[in-house]
């Protein structure tokens, strides 16, 4: 037992190498996912804050630095409070204003459109802010040998950067297209807009690098900062393939969707006559787009692996430098297998739920009969039968996939160079009192 730990004496300031490992079996997460799913159902969803917390504690504790675990010290209560505050400050006012706009400008499409436009811009302005706050909360709840991590900067600054680095190129493309359309013909303007949108994707590596620099330079472990030295240039060669591949994939998907809609008057039936399509008719469309997203994720894997290594390779701490060992192929398998896992889990849940409905639910004739919809009580019973398998399965697969992703990235992360651990003292920065409410509302808290 002694041998796995670095035998350093008390309080030595001698620099020592840091070994990063991830020791955890993902099989054990299946049981945890199942229990969390059941508890979520029993508590009408409220347990999800504690479920999330336990998953994090397991992932953090599986991460070992020189054999000693990293600790996650956040609590479910903090997450719940953060969520409730954002619910009161953001979600409820948005809901009420939506109802108010509908009432005041009854049926006016322009008013609703304007309202939704403003809402989307406001949300987009908040997303970066939310990401930063969530990251700050998680780092402040991350400890190793009792020393906390932290993020010492302004969420507003990061949020603004997150916004303008995308909004500015978009506006520029739109303005340019507008001028061209005015000077020549609307069709030319439209073409320029399309090209502008495609070209705009080229800001993404630059933007990712800029955002990574901003957040990394704000990071602390104890009283010591992390620094970032990367530039976007080296990212572009690999990006060319991701961009081209995705353009081809999405063009094919759009073509297939268009061809399918044109067949058998589907477009006319659905969009002009407004006849709701049958589920069977939607299945091919769902299949096309699921395949497209999978193909896109696969093609993007090589770029993403390279970007991850780039980010790690330019992150420094106390004279040591991180190193990422992700590869396109391994990342592709991770993404693909996690997708298949989620889809398989959902299908299994639907099969179980369908069997339950068939056995205990409303008579199938009434369910299938599209003219005479089942009455509400029967619908509720069917919902009660199908929801538990879905909640349990999605919680289970999500937990499993999350653990696998963490293992993937952490087992491919190295730190080159010794660090004088004894010299790192507890930081003086303030800990945020509550957890990441905003990020939970936007559903962007991946871990």
């Amino acid at each position: 037992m002694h041998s796995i730990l670095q035998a350093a004496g008390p309080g030595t300031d001698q620099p020592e190498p840091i070994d990063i490992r991830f020791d955890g079996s993902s099989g054990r997460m299946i049981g945890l996912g199942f229990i969390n799913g059941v508890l979520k159902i029993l508590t009408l969803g409220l347990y999800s804050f504690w479920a999330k917390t336990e998953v994090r504690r397991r992932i953090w504790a599986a991460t070992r630095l020189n054999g000693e675990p990293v600790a996650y010290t956040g609590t479910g209560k903090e997450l719940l409070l953060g969520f409730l505050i954002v619910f009161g400050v953001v979600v409820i006012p948005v809901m009420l204003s939506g109802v108010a706009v509908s009432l005041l400008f009854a049926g006016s499409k322009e008013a609703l459109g304007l309202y939704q436009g403003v809402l989307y811009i406001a949300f987009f302005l908040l997303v970066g802010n939310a990401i930063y706050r969530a990251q700050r909360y998680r780092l402040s709840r991350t400890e190793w040998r009792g020393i906390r991590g932290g993020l010492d900067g302004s969420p507003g600054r990061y949020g603004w950067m997150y916004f303008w680095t995308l909004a500015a190129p978009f506006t520029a493309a739109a303005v340019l297209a507008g001028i061209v359309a005015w000077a020549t013909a609307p069709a030319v303007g439209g073409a320029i807009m399309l090209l502008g949108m495609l070209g705009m994707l080229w800001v993404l590596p630059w933007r990712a690098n800029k955002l990574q620099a901003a957040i990394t330079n704000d990071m602390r472990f104890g009283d010591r900062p992390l620094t970032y030295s990367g530039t976007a240039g080296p990212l572009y060669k690999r990006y060319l393939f991701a961009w081209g591949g995705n353009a081809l994939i999405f063009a094919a998907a759009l073509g297939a969707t268009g061809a399918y809609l044109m067949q058998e008057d589907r477009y006319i039936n659905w969009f002009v006559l407004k006849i709701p399509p049958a589920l069977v008719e939607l299945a091919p469309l769902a299949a096309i787009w699921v395949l497209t997203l999978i193909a896109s994720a696969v093609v993007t894997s090589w770029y993403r692996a390279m970007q991850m290594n780039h980010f790690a390779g330019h992150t420094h701490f106390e004279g040591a430098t991180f190193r990422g060992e992700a590869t396109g192929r391994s990342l592709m398998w991770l993404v693909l297998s996690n997708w298949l896992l989620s889809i398989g889990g959902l299908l299994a849940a639907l099969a179980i739920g369908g069997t339950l409905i068939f056995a205990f639910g409303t008579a199938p004739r009434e369910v299938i009969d599209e003219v005479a919809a089942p009455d509400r009580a029967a619908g509720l019973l069917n919902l009660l039968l199908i929801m538990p398998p879905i909640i349990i399965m999605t919680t289970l697969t999500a937990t499993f996939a999350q653990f696998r992703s963490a293992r993937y990235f952490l087992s491919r992360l190295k730190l080159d160079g010794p660090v004088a651990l004894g010299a790192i003292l507890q930081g003086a920065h303030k800990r945020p009192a509550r957890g990441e409410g905003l990020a939970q509302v936007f559903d962007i808290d991946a871990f």
Partner: protein
Amino acid sequence: MPSNSTATYGRFSDGRSASARDASVNLGLSGVEIRLTSPDQQMIWQYDTLKAAEPVRTHAIDVLLTSTSQPGASVFVPSPDFARNLRLSAPHLTARAERWRHARPWVFGSLAAMGFVALIYAAGWSPIRSMAGVLPQSWRERLGESAVASMTEGHKLCASPAGVAAMEKLSLRLSKAAGASTPYKVAIYDWPLLNAFAVPGGQVVMTKGLIEKAGSPDEVAGVLAHEIGHGIELHPETGIIRAIGLAAAVELMMGGSGGALANMGLLLAQLGYTRTAEHEADLQAITLLKNAAISNKGLGDFFKRVETIEDEDKVTKTLKPFDLLRTHPPTAEREKLVRNQKDYPSTPALDEASWQELKRVCTITKDPAKDAGVDGAPL
């Protein structure tokens, strides 16, 4: 109380710097005993002050402990035996104990909430219906206009003056029978679907398909009476409040962005009535027709017609309208309800000339946008 007298090797950090010291750790009677060498130092962390970095599993190979009695400090013990014995001395650190401690209040809270809701409904009180009753009339009208605008999107309003006048006459006759202060506003849309629905604020929408398929003015009167019946029972208002409440609950549970609620039209388009609501509307319709001295045979005939169309629909799988055909009590049953009513003296719902005008109401159409109040500036 198990206590292994042999000390276990551990690593102690005081939380002031990122260094660690060797320690010997022991499970004592009242707490974990930690002994440090050079300089010699001994601490006891009481069991009930302990926290573990992750729940201590049966097969845990190590454990990272902190104590509320010494904030910042932590001790890491890489020993399966220590972890197993710790579970016995400090059972609150096990996964089962932790989960139940966190979930228990919410499990009981959820049970209590569900019991409360069940009790309210068992007592026959519908809180949503009561809320619908106190909505101001101007709000109802606006909600109704919103609903009409989003549901009839892309269809023109039928506007032949004589046809519109005929429908107004029929609506006035039934509204008077209902004792309504203002007559129900009926809009006919140039829409081949066979359909009719009531929206909040005393408004009813009918389609060209319905007028064309109806065999007599009494049938149209029967359908209108049914929709007015929904209006009297406040079913559209109740449906909207229920939909908003449901959407809010879903947002709360899923942690959504609230964007779904901004599109009221979408909400309104999903409205459907329960079996009970349809029955209530049918009963209202029967009373209304009687008070207005219009034969209820028309309503019965219409149900018969719907039944035939339902059968056709099952074969052709086309044109699935919402309210009228999606009525939940089987159509034959509803027809029987109407047929079982006693006969009473009645006159045709409309004279022959007006009926012919009503059938031609869609020969002239106009954009609903030009009809002030349906689409455009606030009233």
